[in-house]
């Protein structure tokens, strides 16, 4: 147990691992016939690799890394559109740093910035608002990216811009939602998923009930989890207990942060500003029904798609993935990152080909950083 010394509570971690092993044996999980547990959130993927949980748990448990890394599922066409907006001379294009290195078809935002576009990394949509106030002669566009944890921040920023009558601020909305891709994966006949570890901070906003369908319609257990290694082990144990007892329920391991019904102010802001698109494109997964949000007509003045005639407001555009990129197969758990012919060759964190190598939350980057040669040898 090489990593166990790093646990703040190694005794608890050992006890949890032992209980997981006992339950795995009881339900007959083996290396050949493992129980497949998907951790949905990219933060959890990162933590599982960081603490080596995938190697510490009983060999009958296999983690499938979910689509919960926003920059990993961002299609190349969206990146191209960001650059199209950013290259306009009147525009100050603002974005979270995470999106800077995601490859588009021509270049990434960081390359566009180096070539002279006014692209600024900001910490918060509030920074973009402040830039708009300070630069009344420029068009300030914020790249609205991320799941339900992040969506309230742009909704509240748009509401503030509307209150202030800030005419030079808009959001390029690419917000996506967690439950819909999970439904799509559960509907995929190639996927074998026995249970889920649910996202912690997304659930702090939306609560636990949006996952009810996973238990009710598909008969799979889901446990919303915190980010400490013992939180994750506890959650895996709770999933296994449900399987062993023949239950399928939504359980909340992270109740100290996640309220059952989420955060009412955040949910109200999202509902006021955004509505569902009929479908939205995910890198590696394709179009998924009702999985993306767009700005409501009442806030059209702050919608960069309307203002620049771009994105889903324009003609639907899809761009093929780069040749040899297997992000889609990795994302759906059909291929391990190390089995991709480009892994570590045409695709590294320094020069990513696919999006899963860009973010520390991407499965490929996690394998590269923590799996490394050992991971390859183990395969």
């Amino acid at each position, binding site marked *: 147990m090489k990593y166990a010394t790093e646990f703040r509570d190694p005794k608890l971690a050992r006890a949890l691992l032992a209980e997981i092993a006992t339950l795995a044996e009881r339900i007959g999980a083996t290396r050949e016939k493992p129980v497949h547990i998907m951790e949905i959130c990219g933060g959890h993927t990162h933590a599982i690799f960081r603490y080596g949980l995938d190697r510490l748990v009983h060999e009958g448990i296999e983690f499938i890394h979910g689509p*919960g890394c*926003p920059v990993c599922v961002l299609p190349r066409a969206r990146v191209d559109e960001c650059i199209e907006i950013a290259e306009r001379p009147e525009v100050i294009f603002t974005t979270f*740093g995470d999106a800077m290195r995601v490859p588009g078809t021509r270049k990434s935002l960081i390359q566009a910035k180096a070539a002279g576009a006014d692209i600024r990394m900001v910490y918060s949509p509030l*920074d973009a608002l402040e830039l708009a106030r300070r630069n009344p002669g420029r068009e300030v566009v914020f790249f609205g990216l*991320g799941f339900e944890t*992040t969506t309230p921040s742009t909704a509240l920023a748009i509401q503030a811009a509307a209150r202030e009558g800030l005419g030079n601020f808009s959001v390029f909305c690419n917000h996506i939602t967690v439950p819909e891709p999970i439904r799509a994966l559960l509907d995929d006949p190639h996927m074998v998923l026995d249970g889920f570890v649910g996202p912690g901070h997304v659930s702090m906003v939306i609560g636990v009930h949006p996952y009810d369908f996973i238990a009710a319609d598909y008969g799979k257990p889901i446990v919303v989890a915190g*980010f400490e290694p013992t939180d994750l082990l506890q959650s895996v144990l709770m999933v296994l207990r449900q399987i062993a007892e023949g239950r399928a329920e939504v359980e909340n391991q992270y109740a100290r942060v996640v309220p059952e019904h989420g955060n009412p102010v955040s949910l109200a802001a999202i509902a006021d500003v955004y509505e569902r698109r009929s479908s939205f494109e995910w890198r590696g997964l394709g179009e998924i029904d009702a999985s993306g949000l767009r700005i409501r007509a009442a806030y059209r003045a702050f919608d960069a798609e309307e203002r620049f005639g771009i994105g889903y407001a324009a003609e639907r555009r899809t761009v093929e993935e780069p040749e040899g990129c297997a992000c889609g197969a990795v994302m759906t758990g059909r291929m391990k990152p190390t089995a991709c012919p480009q892994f570590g060759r045409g695709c590294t964190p320094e020069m990513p080909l696919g999006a899963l190598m860009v973010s520390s939350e991407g499965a490929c980057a996690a394998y590269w950083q923590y799996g490394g040669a050992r991971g390859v040898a183990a395969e």
Partner: protein
Amino acid sequence: MCLGIPGRIVAITDEARLMAMAEVSGVRREVSVACIAEGPLDRLVGEWALIHVGFAMAKIDADEAAKTLQALRDLGEAEEALEAMAAGDAALEGRG
């Protein structure tokens, strides 16, 4: 990137706009408390909250804050958040 980082509310800076000064790992940053504001805002001073992209999203206790901060440090996420805050400041000055 959907992670919140623990910060402590140290002062209310703009009551009307629901803005407060928060201290995150020794770095001060103005944040919105719109999502956790119920009752008099002054009561938030001294409280810990999970802060995500400039918004306090949930109140937490001091013990949870310490544990979460340690977990985020282990993942390198705490440094990432602090660097992003510095990048935001630089962008406002036109240096980003």
